[in-house]
């Protein structure tokens, strides 16, 4: 296989190149998806544009209490180890720590995971729950896209042919937040989710009233999706088991899973209910455990 390898040292340089080659240039960050596509699935490309030399994209930065920004080159391992992330977003830590295996986590980036736009992307449900905002850059300038508008379909996003994902901003959340990401697979490692569910619960001063509930699901539709009707059932309510069950049922009703080699549609629908229920309970327990000191 012959292709041209471009190795820019800065983002402006990379944006120039991407502007010049457009769709002909495939972006390389961790390479954990691109290399498989090229070596095993017959993907041909004239140009590989490697972002790996752009140090300015490799960061995880706290934004003075407004939130956290992940550079496009932040790996799953770096995110899962980051003290800022661990303190605020345990759901994202759980997602990153369940991506395939340690080796892939060390190479693969959260940004790449999103841009690859697999319905099963582990990082997507927590970031959907967190209302993350993606900064897409090109020589024309930058635009900020809420993550729920980013995915269009399997391997399809709103990224234009001259754009590069620069960073992912995670806004700071309410103090009493509890969240988790649960992944169902057949084995303990090297798995592509049969179902992935992220749930966040926000509480007010009391332990009972849910001020906000957010649910996102992976491997249930052409893109990772929020379960907004399910969320609505719990929002503003005093929590109880019936409502949690109703939420789980509503989430399953919102899902549009297919049958494939990993599992049937019917099993997936059942498992959305099971995992949603569990994740909601776990998120609630975490929220209750979180004090108000922030």
């Amino acid at each position, binding site marked *: 296989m012959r292709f041209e390898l471009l190795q820019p040292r800065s983002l402006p340089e990379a944006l120039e190149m991407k502007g010049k080659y457009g769709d002909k240039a495939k972006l390389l960050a961790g390479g954990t998806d691109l290399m498989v596509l090229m070596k095993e699935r017959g993907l041909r490309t004239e140009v590989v544009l490697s972002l790996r030399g752009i140090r300015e994209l490799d960061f995880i930065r706290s934004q003075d209490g407004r939130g956290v920004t992940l550079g496009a080159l932040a790996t799953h391992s770096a995110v899962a180890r980051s003290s800022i992330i661990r303190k605020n977003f345990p759901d994202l830590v759980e997602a990153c720590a369940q991506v395939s295996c340690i080796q892939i986590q060390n190479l693969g980036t959260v940004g790449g995971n999103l841009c690859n736009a697999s319905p099963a992307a582990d990082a997507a449900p927590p970031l959907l729950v967190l209302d993350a905002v993606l900064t897409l850059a090109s020589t024309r300038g930058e635009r900020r896209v809420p993550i729920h508008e980013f995915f269009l379909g399997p391997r399809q996003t709103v990224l234009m042919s001259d754009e590069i994902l620069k960073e992912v901003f995670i806004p700071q959340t309410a103090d009493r937040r509890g969240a988790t990401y649960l992944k169902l697979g057949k084995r303990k490692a090297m798995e592509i989710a049969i179902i992935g569910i992220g749930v966040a619960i926000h509480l007010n001063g009391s332990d009972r009233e849910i001020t906000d509930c957010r649910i996102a699901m992976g491997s249930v539709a052409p893109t990772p999706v929020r379960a907004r009707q399910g969320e609505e059932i719990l929002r503003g309510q005093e929590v109880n088991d019936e409502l949690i069950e109703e939420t789980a049922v509503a989430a399953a009703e919102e899902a549009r899973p297919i049958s494939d080699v*990993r599992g049937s549609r019917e099993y997936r629908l059942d498992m959305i209910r099971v995992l949603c229920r569990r994740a909601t309970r776990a998120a609630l327990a975490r929220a209750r455990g979180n004090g108000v000191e922030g």
Partner: protein
Amino acid sequence: MSEYYAVGKSVARVDTLAKVTGEADYTADVMLPGMLYGKALRSPHAHARIVRISTRRAESLPGVKAVITAKDVPDILIGLKLQDIPILARDRVRFAGEKVAAVAAVDEETAQEAINLIEVEYEELPAVTDMEEAMKEGAVLVHENLHTYAGLPKPVKNTNTMAHEVYTKGDTAEGFAKADLVFEHTFRTPIVHQGYLEPHAAVVEINKDGSVTVWSSNKSPFRVRGLMAEILGVPFTRIRVIPNFVGGDFGGKALVIDEPLCYYMALKSGRPVKMVMSRQEEFLASSPRHASIIHLKAGLTKAGELVAWQAKVVFDSGAYAAYKPGVVLGGTKKLGGVYRIPHVRIDGYYVYTNTLPCGHCRAPGDPQATFAVECFVDMLASQVRMDPFRFRWLNALDKGDLSPTGDPWKGINLKETMTAAVEKSNWGKHKPNKHYGIGIACAERATGTGESSAVVIVNDDGSANLITGSMDPGTGSRTILCQIVSEALKIPMDRDTINEVDTDSAPYDQGAGAGRTTFVAGQSTYRAALDVRSQLLASAAKVLGCPPGQAQELIDARDGFLFLLSDPSKKISYAQAVKAAGKSQFMAQETFSSKQMDDTCFATHIAEVQVDPETGVVEVLRVTAAHDIGFAINPAGSEGQIEGGIVQGIGFALLEELQRAEGKVTNPTLADYKLCTAADAPKIVTVLVEGAPGAGPFQAKAIGEIPTCPIAPAIANAIFDAVGARVTELPITGEKIVEVLKKSGTFDRVPVALGEER
């Protein structure tokens, strides 16, 4: 303390360092001057007529040195026994993945590019992809001319059933008439791949004199030599097969796959050719384990004694049977289990379908049969309200019993393994929680027979060489054979070297497989080494002044010295003994051949699991495995075989399946073909039950294959114990468990106390 010098001790494998440092060369590492890389074009259709192939565009691609189709290779069918597979598809393709053309080019990428330029026009034909459909009258025939094929057990016309074998004992009609209770059930197992790390690879070079050198990822170099000579129509002496390290075999490395293609492309291009299969090609077209449908029927007395047993198995052979050394599989015979049953009938059917050809995989047919039998036995036990262990104990074969198919085995050690497994496991103890389960299963598999030769040399510096044609495909046999030489000659392991040499240099060896190496290669090695020892003793007798006839009684050998038993200070070294005889080396050659095995090996596994009743996810917590091994020459090696077999068996039980849609494999990647990972491996407690006389040196029995047999049913039985779900079709996925729980109305009913977080 052991009376032995080198055997019976856990030693590091002699090849470990070479393997972990990367120094060990595998076939894909072979590099020759001017070597080309080959790739194959494969059929996308399960069944089609080849209307036209155009290779013009591929041939004109720069860097392409040879393109071959069926017209470039002999119009013959080949096979280990039943000869039914062409070298390249001729006029017809019978499975998706069958090779229709091949290209050799200066590099792999160019070869692949050229493959994409070959145009093939197919006319799709109706395909038969279901083995039960294939058995029906009027089904699409995979091979119309089957009755003319060489190696067919019994010529039959107009059928996809290439073989039907029957085992009977007593009279089942009479047996079932006597039974108080009769039960029957059907079990299914999928196609699973051997999962070896190293894919098939071959390199062929045609020498200046026209003779052929072959490097092959194969555990049986002499078989490769024989097949290549047969295809080329030349004497064996014109083919030289050079062994390399083999990165795992598990039964799948016994045949020629790309070797003939390499040869014909080497012939056309005048350059050596290498082919290495991709992982995807491995999943589409190698020789995995047969899928099976097994129907069992048992008659019992009210007291729980088995009186009659009827079994029927259908094995899906896929489009060809060429990859099997015997057309039929040993597993059929295992359908009577390890029980004392007076009336038995077993029917085994082997059926062609338009799907990938199946072959041998670690204990061919046994894991399928054992899964069905041992699950069924648990189901029978519950029908007569007996504990699964007690039910087995009541019916278990004991010393002196005839096997279910009427074989008079010596030394039946089944109950010893049952007792050992129970003692070391938590069987019969209090369940730690509601969804914990424990299950038991037993299995039997004999040591393999065959032929092997060895040459043992003691050099005049006192070191020793073992020259052998026996291959170690990763089993540890290389180490075992070195231990045997060390034991016979009483020299440290670092003083002897094993030389696995090419087919021009080594005496004949049938190849690894069937659990034969320690026995057959071990016996030939041991006998040759003992012969050399006698030569050393005879020479020493002269030097030390013993009557030659009494050398064996008066002289002993140890640590490279020969000394008088009456006065150990009177000694000479092995080197001196060789030199004293006026020689540069002592050498002996032994051939050992065995056709009949009259004892067998038993095993009992106990699996402990935790089942999530809401997702069906199974965690195997602990496996206790007791194996009737006779004598463990390298106990660590035996434990390794058991642990490996169990991990592979967990894959068979819970994860692995080559999924197919209309005959085509739909998950040909390691992402979606789920092998067990290290994270999924449970704690494994192995018990080596020694003492039963085995056929091998020092009474050793086989251990290579049986560990993979009882694990799947032990897990299935444990799952039933945990959540009451009896899944009769492998793999037992979470989805299937949930399905069974839903049918029984126990899914999603009971609130589950699993804690808030997982």
